[in-house]
C-alpha cells in the first residue's frame, strides 16, 4: 500500500512538472496553432492528474471538453483570425505580479483546508451519510449524484442551464446565423 502511494506521489510530481512546462510554453510560444495543440495537451495532463485523485468522471469530462471540443473551437477561431500572435506592446511584469499574488492568496487559502482524504473531513463526517440515507426516501432517485444535482439543487441547475442557453443565443447572434458561407479561399497548410 505505501509503495503504491509513493508511486502515485512520484507520478503526481512528474505530471505537475509537465503541466508547468506546458503552461510556460503556452505563454511563450507565438505560433498559435502550437498553442492550441499545447492547450489540448494541458487538458490531457489535468485529466491524468484528476484520474490519480480517483475523480475519473471529472477527468473524463475534462478530457472530452478540454482536449476535444475546445480544441476544435479554438481551431475554428484560428481559421477566422491569424496564425501568429502579435508581439505584446506592454511589459509582462504587472500581469505576472497579479498572477503571483493571486496564486499566493489561493495557496494561502488551501492551508486551512483539511488534508486530502482524511477521515475527519467535514464532507465525510455527516453530510455524505445524510445524503446517502435520505436520498432514496425523499426523492426516489436511485443515483445519489443525479438526485443532488436535479432535485436538491434543482434551482441551481436551472439557473446554470439558463446561463448557458443565454450565452449560446448571444454567441449565435454575434456570429450571425444568416447562413452566409465563409469563403473557401485559403486552404491547405504550409
Amino acid at each position: 500500500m505505501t509503495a503504491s502511494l509513493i508511486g502515485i506521489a512520484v507520478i503526481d510530481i512528474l505530471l505537475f512538472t509537465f503541466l508547468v512546462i506546458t503552461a510556460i510554453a503556452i505563454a511563450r510560444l507565438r505560433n498559435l496553432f502550437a498553442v492550441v495543440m499545447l492547450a489540448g495537451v494541458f487538458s490531457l495532463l489535468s485529466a491524468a492528474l484528476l484520474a490519480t485523485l480517483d475523480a475519473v468522471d471529472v477527468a473524463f469530462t475534462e478530457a472530452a471538453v478540454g482536449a476535444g471540443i475546445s480544441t476544435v473551437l479554438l481551431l475554428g477561431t484560428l481559421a477566422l483570425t491569424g496564425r501568429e500572435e502579435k508581439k505584446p506592446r506592454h511589459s509582462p511584469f504587472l500581469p505576472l505580479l497579479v498572477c503571483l499574488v493571486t496564486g499566493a492568496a489561493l495557496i494561502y487559502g488551501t492551508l486551512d483546508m483539511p488534508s486530502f482524504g482524511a477521515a475527519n473531513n467535514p464532507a465525510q463526517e455527516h453530510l455524505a451519510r445524510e445524503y446517502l440515507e435520505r436520498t432514496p426516501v425523499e426523492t426516489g432517485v436511485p443515483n445519489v449524484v443525479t438526485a443532488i444535482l436535479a432535485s436538491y439543487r434543482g434551482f441551481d441547475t436551472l439557473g446554470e442551464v439558463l446561463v448557458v442557453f443565454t450565452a449560446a443565443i448571444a454567441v449565435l447572434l454575434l456570429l450571425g446565423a444568416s447562413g452566409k458561407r465563409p469563403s473557401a479561399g485559403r486552404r491547405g497548410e504550409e
Partner: protein
Amino acid sequence: MIMFLAVAAALFVAILLVLIRLFAGPTVYDRVLAVNTFGTLTVLFLSLVGFIGERPDFLDIAILYALINFVSTIAILKFFRYRALGQATLNTEES
C-alpha cells in the same frame, strides 16, 4: 513495484519526447501527430495507474479516452482539410 517504476519512467520519457516534438515541431502535422501520441500515452498512463492502484475499472476509462482521442484527431485533420467542420461536401465539390 520495480517493474511499475520502470514502466512509469519509460512512460514519462516518452511524454517528454512528445512534448519536445510539440514545442519544436516545424510543421503542423508534427504537432497533430504529437497530440495524438500524447493521447495514446494518456491511455497508457491511465492503465498504469489502474494497475498500480489495483483498480481494473480504469481500463474502461482508458478505452473511452482512446475513442475520444481518435475522434478529436479526425476532427482536427478534417478541419485542416476543409477549413470548417460542417461543409465537407460543398468544398470537395469545389476542389
